[in-house]
């Protein structure tokens, strides 16, 4: 599948499916123990990037997995391939995900010099016991050190990821981790409720009774606590799970997803969306490498999204943005219809349930709708 075909500009996602060790809760497309594949994989991704057409990049996001398990030279190679022939206007957001334990001062200096200007640090918790339960490769102290190193290197846009609702975690424990994160003053925070995914080691431990099953009501309390604490610390809650210090520090790349705008993913299992099509590469890194090296397409699936479904997806993603919501004018320009009319019945019902708010400009989640957002989203999907 050709890269960035007709859209004048799109977000670019580069997937690195490698980690040092597999976390207990993780069901992402990431694998530990694939070090021998790194070199070939990087060449394959570079090749996928080079074979694609040229277009302007709105954002670049290197995610994983843990991209920083790769040597700096590989990352540099990938960024070069991405930029070859593709304008990257100054100030464009270039994010890399990293985990404590895989970055030090030298690496961070290097990343900055490659043009990376945003770092997303997977901290997850500041409690060593919790980190161990999650199967993370680092301690709280190492997480702090990584943050400090990033600041020292001069990174001015750092995001921290934290997870709440862990088995055995109580409100105080969550409050403690969150406070330490806030004390560091990151530009951005992503706070996710743990979801126990089938097939993970964590799910097995819970099923076998080795760990208590997380209580969703407690997770709801934790979420509300986070909303208060972040607001008190001066953060804007701009997406269901995301907070930013100010407007300009929202994650541009993720905003593209939430606004249902075009993006292209390269690498194993990466997803793309442009010109009415969604497509995805094969998930297996070795299969991906094999296909590319034989000169074949790494495509695993593609789906044409008819307008009605595109509207539904636009609602489902757009309503995640808490203050922005889905603006009527933007919807009308895109689909040629008035969203208030198109979804009159749904909006009416949701309004009565107190899950959404409508004003002159937009539809958005009511505060009560944040924790019950699925109840809102599914109503907009055609079925």
């Amino acid at each position, binding site marked *: 599948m050709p890269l960035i075909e007709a859209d004048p500009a799109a977000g670019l*996602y580069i*997937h690195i499916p490698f980690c040092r060790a597999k976390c207990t809760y993780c069901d*992402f497309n990431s694998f530990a123990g694939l070090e021998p594949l790194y070199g070939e994989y990087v060449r394959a991704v570079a090749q996928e990037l080079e074979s694609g057409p040229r277009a302007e990049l709105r954002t670049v996001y290197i*995610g994983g997995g843990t991209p920083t398990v790769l040597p700096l030279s590989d990352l540099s190679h990938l960024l070069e391939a991405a930029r070859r022939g593709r304008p990257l206007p100054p100030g464009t957001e270039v994010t890399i995900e990293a985990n404590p334990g895989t970055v030090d001062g030298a690496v961070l200096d290097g990343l900055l010099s490659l043009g990376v200007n945003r770092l997303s640090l997977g901290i997850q918790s500041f409690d060593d016991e919790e980190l161990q339960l999650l199967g993370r490769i680092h301690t709280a102290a190492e997480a702090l050190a990584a943050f400090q190193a990033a600041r020292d290197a001069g990174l001015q846009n750092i995001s921290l990821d934290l997870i709440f609702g862990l088995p055995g975690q109580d409100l105080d424990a969550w409050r403690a981790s969150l406070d330490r994160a806030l004390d560091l003053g990151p530009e951005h925070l*992503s706070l*996710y*409720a743990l*979801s126990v995914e089938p097939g993970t080691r964590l799910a097995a431990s819970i099923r076998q009774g080795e760990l208590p099953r997380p209580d*969703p*009501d407690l*997770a*709801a309390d934790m*979420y509300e606590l986070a909303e208060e604490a972040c607001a008190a610390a001066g953060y804007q809650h701009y997406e*269901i*799970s995301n907070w930013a210090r100010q407007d300009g520090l929202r994650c541009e790349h*993720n905003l593209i*997803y939430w606004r*249902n705008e075009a*993006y292209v*993913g390269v690498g194993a299992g*990466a*997803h*793309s*969306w442009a010109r009415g099509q*969604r497509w*995805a590469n094969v998930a297996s890194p070795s299969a991906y490498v094999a296909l590319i090296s034989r000169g074949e397409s790494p495509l695993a699936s593609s*789906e044409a999204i008819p307008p009605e479904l595109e509207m*539904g*997806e636009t609602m*489902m*993603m757009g309503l995640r943005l808490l203050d922005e919501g889905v603006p009527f004018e933007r919807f009308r320009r895109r689909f040629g219809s008035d969203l208030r009319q198109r979804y009159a019945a749904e909006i009416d019902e949701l309004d009565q*349930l107190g*899950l959404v708010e409508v004003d002159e400009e937009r539809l958005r989640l009511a505060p009560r709708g*944040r*924790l*019950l*957002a*699925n*109840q809102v*989203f*599914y*109503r907009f*999907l055609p*079925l």
Partner: protein
Amino acid sequence: MMDQERIRNFSIIAHIDHGKSTLADRLLEQTGTLTDREMMDQVLDSMDLEREKGVTIKASAVRMAYRGEGGQEYVLNLIDTPGHVDFTYEVSRALEACEGALLVVDASQGVQAQTLANLYLALDADLTIVPIINKIDLPSARPEEVAQEVEDLLGIPAEEAIYTSAKEGTGAEAVLRAVVERIPAPRGQGDAPLRALIFDSHYDPYKGVIAYVRVVDGDLRLDEQLLLMSNRQPVDPLEIGVFRPGMKPTDRLGAGEVGYVATGLKTLQDCRVGDTLTVKANPAQQLLPGYRPAKPMVFAGLYPADGEDYELLRDALAKLQLNDASLVYEPETSQALGFGFRCGFLGLFHMDIIQERLEREYDLDVVFTSPSVEYQVLKTDGQVVAIDNPAKLPPEQEIDQIEEPWMQIQVFTPAEYIGPVMDLVTKRRGEVTKMEYLDAQRVLLAYEIPLSEIVVDFYDHLKSRTRGYASLDYSPADYRPGDLVKLEVLVGGQPVDALSIIVHREHAFLKGQKLVSKMREVIPRQMFDVAIQAAQGNRVISRATVKALRKDVLSKCYGGDVTRKRKLLEKQKAGKKRMRKVGQVEIPQEAFLSVLRLGDE
């Protein structure tokens, strides 16, 4: 004209799974009725469901040719019957068409409850019994002992027993020889006016109702107009023939023969099993003794999961009824479930089969409400009403008395389980009528017990309490007054008609509690607190709350994998669509059957 001396008509009867259908296979093979290529296991079980479950649901007939000793040719008509108690009536019909029965007994299990019950049916019909001890190949087989048991319990001399392994084919020839030698030939009057007994039927879309007949007297011919004696319905036969086992046309059937008549009639009601066919021009005077029509024992509401499928459900029931006269139904409405049907079944097994057939053959998603029996309610104004839907029970103050159906049940069990069986039966209001040691190890326990206490999960509990060793048979006894009350379930303050049950007053409290906690498990959390109550009359006897849902949100961002998120939400939406709304509360369909799973004391 087929000489009646050369005809033998017989059934195979047994306790469930003792090997009737497999023995029938061997007889078909031995007589060369089917070629090797046509042969498959339990070939007479032709319905998909029968083949899959390995049980016979519908009786079937087949005609075989057999060359006896000395080269004499015989025609043998075999009728295979179902073993499950729900279908006892099928057995009794089939027996009316025969002079003899092979009583098959499993050489390792020995005599079981239905061995006895079916034997009595056969003796009632005056049949000659040929005892067969089957499965002698099993390592646990004890053929001589079982033959002795048959003699001791059933009074059939042990030396008459024939030993077979239907699986390996051993003894098939001996069985055929015994059929010819021991079972009497039919003794109809060949020159009398036609009397043919309809002992079963099925529906064919082209030929209408196919009546399975046993000609008793006279001659059945294609070129004569026939008459159904009970309702004087004329029949112009489209085809007559015999089963081999497929339908094979002939132009006449003589006295003593078994075959079929394609009647062209459109509904089974026009051509009832048990009726007598005669010739219109020269009718017989006397009906053959018919059998009582099968009486439904349990009733349940059937509602399309999607209200728009109502018409489809109606058509499907009509089609099923064409081949299953024991299925009865009439339209009913429920506040909770909308438009549907109240259906009567022979038992829970029969209900399961109908449920599966609706799903499989008609691709319908159907909500079944909890099964109920039929009550006779004497009202204070002197009226008597039959109630088969608990929701329709009149208010308590209008009721003088409620009568409920009682059953006679027989349990065969190893003596060591007498205690647990007794305990189960008495907890369910049963009364012992007889306890008889059959031999040192085994006991026959006879009870009387309300039908409502055994329709739901009684058999499962009996089996688990006896490690699978007990066997059960039952038959209707009578109606008796009971101290019965209606238990209602209120969800969000509103009574849910389809969840009402009728229970004994003394069980009301416990059942109410269980019902409420079951409902609390199955009703998902909603946007608001949902109160669940069980009430008897105006008195709430148990309550619980399903707390409002607090958190339902996908928080993670799976890279750009929007499709994954969407699919999860679509699944959620599809699940919602299948729920029933009572007031504002969404109730999943399985809730309506949860009374079935209340568990035991």
